[in-house]
C-alpha cells in the first residue's frame, strides 16, 4: 500500500462518529467503552498521507471527511481453508446414499 494518496485515488477513510462517552444508552460495557467508528471509500479530493485528515468524494458524489486509512483498499475476505470435519461429513453422507437398496437419481435410466 502506498503511504501517500494522490488526488483522484480511490481510498478509504475512517471517522469517529461517536466518542466512547457518547454511545447509545444501554449498550453493553465493552461497546460503550470504545468509539463508534465509520469507514467509507471514495476518491481523494487532496493529496494526503496515511493518518492525515482528508476529504473524499464517494461513488454517489457525497463528500466525506476522515482519517486516511487505506490508499488502495482491497477485498481480502476469502473462502478460508477447507474444513476437514465438513469434508468428512459430506463423504459419509455420500457413502450412506450408496448403500444397497437406496434409491438414487438416475436409477431408472
Amino acid at each position: 500500500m502506498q503511504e501517500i494518496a494522490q488526488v483522484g485515488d480511490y481510498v478509504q477513510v475512517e471517522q469517529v462518529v461517536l466518542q466512547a462517552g457518547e454511545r447509545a444508552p444501554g449498550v453493553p460495557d465493552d461497546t460503550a467503552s470504545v468509539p463508534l467508528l465509520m469507514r467509507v471509500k471514495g476518491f481523494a479530493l487532496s493529496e494526503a498521507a496515511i493518518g492525515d485528515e482528508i476529504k473524499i468524494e464517494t461513488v454517489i458524489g457525497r463528500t466525506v471527511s476522515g482519517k486516511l486509512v487505506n490508499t488502495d483498499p482491497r477485498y481480502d475476505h476469502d473462502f478460508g481453508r477447507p474444513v476437514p470435519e465438513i469434508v468428512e461429513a459430506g463423504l459419509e453422507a455420500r457413502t450412506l446414499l450408496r448403500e444397497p437398496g437406496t434409491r438414487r437419481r438416475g436409477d431408472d435410466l
Partner: protein
Amino acid sequence: MSADTSFAAVMSRRGEIISRALGLDYSRFERGPLAFDYEGMMEKTGYSLEEVRAIQRDVGVGYTPLLELRNITELVRKVSPPGKGARIFVKDEASNPSGSFKARRAALSVYEAQRKGYSGVIAATSGNYGAAVASQACLRGLDCIIVQELFDSRMVGQPEIMEKGRKCEAYGAEVVQLTVGPELFYMMLRLLEETDYFNASLYTPYGIAGIETLGYEVAEQVHERCDRYPDVVVVTHAGGGNLTGTARGLRKAGADDTEVVGASVDLSGLHMASDEDFNRKSFTTGHTGFGVPFATWPDRADVPRNAARALRYMDRYVLLHQGEVFYVTELLAVLEGLERGPAGNTSLAAAFALAQEMDQEEILVVQETEYTGAGKHPTAQLTFARENGVQVRRGDPAENVPGEQIVIPEGPEQIEVRDFSLDRMRKSLIRNAVRHTGVEEVSSREVDFLCEEINRDRNFVTAALCELQVAVKD
C-alpha cells in the same frame, strides 16, 4: 447541515426524519394506545399481489425454480421411522438478480421510492437486503447508500458482511461501514437527513408485500406439480418479514392449511450489541438474536409500525445449532449439487428434522436459498471462527455453545429441532406492548387487536393482561 448530530438530538428528530423519508402517514392507522389497523395499513399503502408480480417480473425478480431435493429426502428416510420422511422441496431464491429473496422486497421499496420522486435510497442492513436494494436502485437510476455494522473495535470485519458490502459496491452503492453497536439506526437517520433519500426499510408494507409473491409461488408451483398444497413451509426467521410475507402469500393462494414453521439458529448467550461477542458469531442473520426480539416486539424496527409481524402467522418456532446448519449446507452441496447459504439454510436444517415427523406422501417446502461466495460460506465462517478462538469439532450438536464451540454432527440422525415456546413469545409480546405504551387498562377492541397480534384467543390474552395487572374495560 448545521443540525445537532449528537445521539440524543438526532434520535429526538427520528419521527420527522422517518416520516419525510417514507412519505407515508402511519398515524391514520392508529386505533388507540395499543392497537392499529394492520390490514388497513397493508391494503392502503401496499400493492395488490398482481401489481407486485408485475413490478417484480419487469425487473427479473421472482419466478424462481422449485427444486425437489430427492437425495436429501432419501437420506432423511434412512434415519426416519418406517413410512416417515416427507418430500423436501426448496425454492431456489438464490436465482434472483442479487442472489436472495431480498430482491423481492427491494423491488417494491425502490419502485415506491422512484414513484414518489426520491433521488436515492438508503437501507441500514448488514444482510443480503443491501445488495438487493443496491441492485434495484442502479437499474432505476437512483443513488444508493447501504449502512452496515461490519467491524469490531479492532477493525476486524465479519467475513460474511464484508462480502455483502463488496456486492453492494459492485452495484454502484456507497457503503458506510460501522463498528458494532445499535447506532446503525442513528447513522441511517443522519444520512437520511443529509440526503433526503427514501428509507428503503425492510419493514414497510412494501418490504412485506414484496415477499407475498414468494409464498404465492410456492403454493402455486407445489400445486401444479403435486396436485396439493404444501403441508409445511419452513422459513428462516430473523426480522419476521420473510415469515410474514410468505404466510400471507400462501393464504392469498388458498393454501390455508399449510403449517408455517419459523426456524432460527440458537445464539443464546451472545449479546447482539457486544463488541467482544460480535466476531464470535458464525451466523450474521437467521438467528435468535433477531428472531426472538423482533417477533416479540416488532415495532422496534426503523418504521413507526412494522409490517412484519411474525407471531400473527407462525404456527411453530424451532431452533437449530450452528453446526447443524453447516452440516446440511454441506449435504446440499455434495448430495444435490447446490452450493448455497449458509445462513439461509437454517430452514433446510429444520426441514431435515421436521420431515422425519411427517408421512412420506406429505410435502415440506424450504422457501429460500441464498447465494454463496467468499466470506459467505461454511469454510470461510469456520476458518474465521477458529481464528477467533471458537472450537470446531465433530460430536453431538447438543454440545454446541454459541461463541465457544461449533459441533458438526457425527451423522444425519443427530440433526434435531428444539421447539421454542410460542406461548412464551406471545406473552412476551403482550408484556412489551404494555410496557412500551404504559397502559394500565385496555379496551375490548385492543384485546381483539392483541388476539390478532399473537394468533390466540381472548382467554389467553386477558389472562396475560391480568398477570400484568392491566384491566380490560367493557
